[in-house]
């Protein structure tokens, strides 16, 4: 589904991402972990077109997507969420989802602008689809609440819901659990699992190790922009290189 080969990004002389390879198969749930500043979010930005790679190849379902703009990558079926809470603050929850569903319009501009019967039918379709997403995300109770007045956990979930409304095949989640309390974490972990069970491939950045270990079948570890390990959660747990990256070298650890 997604093939990344030799991806590099330099900010001045600093290699934020360095010769990074990754391939994700359809239906996988892959975790991307690493210490702060390892280049995880930069990788997301490169893959989704928010940043242009210095070098490297990114293939989505066989198409080279390097140099494409974010919206065009999203239309190809790869949608990302943001580390910082990202919602349409002055819209209600329902309006957020409806807007997001509107935004991948296969509708011609004039048709949409002039409310032709075809676009009316689509409006109804979008509304029912949006309500479906809200139900799926367990947000029926707050559907008419303005997004900005939601509690933090709900805002994060809404961020994921917005991405879902864009009908992704591959979903890139950037720290979906950050800032959540234990209860919200377990709820959201269940949610991510359900999204994955719907057949959406997921690449997950997360610092919550327990959640990542329980969710992902395969984990990739980045440090200083380089891949230092890749494998099943068990393999990663026992990998010396990974332990060193997180805890420091043995010189300091002992």
């Amino acid at each position: 589904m997604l093939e990344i080969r030799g991806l590099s990004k330099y900010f001045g002389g600093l290699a934020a991402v360095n010769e990074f390879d990754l391939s994700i198969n359809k239906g996988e749930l892959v975790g991307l972990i690493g210490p702060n500043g390892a280049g995880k979010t930069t990788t997301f930005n490169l893959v989704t077109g928010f940043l242009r790679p210095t070098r490297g190849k990114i293939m989505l379902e066989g198409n080279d997507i390097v140099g494409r703009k974010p919206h065009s990558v999203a239309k190809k079926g790869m949608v990302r969420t943001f580390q910082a809470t990202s919602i349409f603050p002055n819209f209600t929850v329902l309006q957020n989802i409806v807007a997001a569903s509107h935004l991948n319009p296969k509708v011609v501009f004039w048709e949409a602008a002039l409310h032709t019967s075809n676009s009316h039918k689509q409006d109804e379709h979008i509304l029912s689809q949006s309500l479906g997403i809200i139900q799926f995300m367990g947000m029926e109770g707050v559907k008419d609440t303005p997004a900005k007045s939601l509690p933090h956990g709900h805002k994060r979930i809404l961020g994921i819901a917005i991405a879902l409304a864009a009908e992704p095949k591959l979903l890139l989640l950037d720290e979906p659990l950050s800032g959540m309390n234990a209860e919200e974490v377990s709820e959201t972990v269940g949610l991510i699992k359900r999204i994955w069970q719907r057949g959406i491939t997921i690449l997950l950045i997360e610092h919550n190790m327990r959640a990542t270990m329980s969710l992902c079948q395969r984990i990739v570890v980045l440090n200083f922009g380089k891949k230092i390990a890749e494998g099943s959660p068990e393999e990663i747990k026992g990998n010396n290189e990974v332990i060193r990256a997180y805890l420091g070298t043995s010189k300091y650890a002992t």
Partner: protein
Amino acid sequence: MSTKKLVKFISYGALIIILFLIPLVITGPYQLHILIMAGIAVILTSSLRLIFNSGQLSLGQGGMMTIGAYTSTLLVMKMGWSTWVALGAATATGALLALLVGYPFVRLKGIYFSLVTVFLAEVIRLIAEQWRSVTGGSLGISNIPPPDPIKISGLLEISFTSKVDFYYLILVFTLISLLILYTLEQSRVGITWFSIRESDSLAESIGVDTTKFKVLAFCIGSLFAGLAGGLYSQYNSVITPSTFGFFYAVYVLIYMIVGGGRRFSGPIVGAVILTFVPELARILKGYQPYIFAVVVILIIIFMPEGLVSMPDRFIKLVTERRGHA
């Protein structure tokens, strides 16, 4: 729901009929002049809001108006075009210029976009001032002919010799413009603009070509500015390069903020009321601008959501009082 719609429909209908009957009551040419200017301000302020809906504040709409005014005037006076065709050309010129500069401009966000639109308006003003052989320099162009008469034999004959004729002309164009702007805002395109204003990177991340939609908003807003400029030139019969300078753009912005930028009715209410305020304060002569400034400051302090938020605030106040009693 349907009764609510009916009430809305009837009240808007009544309002439009009243607007059409106004010249029967108000006949003074000076009063009509104020109403005509209010109509032009409504077109401009509402189209500014459409650009604003996409998260961009243009301070260059005065420039677009100047372009429209000169295009229409020159086509009529130098090329002998029909005024109606020239008016269409003025409208198109505004949109075309916005399209031309739009792609580089919308790469800039927030205040930087606003700044380049100011510069664009300045450049237009300077061209109009310096290109004397065509534009007549800083004195501008006078004796611009009024719109060609409309003749439908035996039914209708409008010659545009009196203020009343112009009142109807501006009224019709204002209503059509508002209808188009409202339809756009309610459409999916409108929703897309709002979501870009809310968060453009989020909109981009879920598949919106934000650049294209921002340029589109700028183009449509400028299209109506071009129209307003063309109408003004044909009405006023004189235009100069500085008629719609930077201060005019700021005034239009004030109209929008005072009326309330969040709602469609905001710019309409703001433009109409603030066109009238200086006129009502006319007896105070030299103090006129002070009155305008005080009114604007008071409204911004006490009604940050604009004049159109007044009914809601009033209702809230009344219900709260009742709650206490």
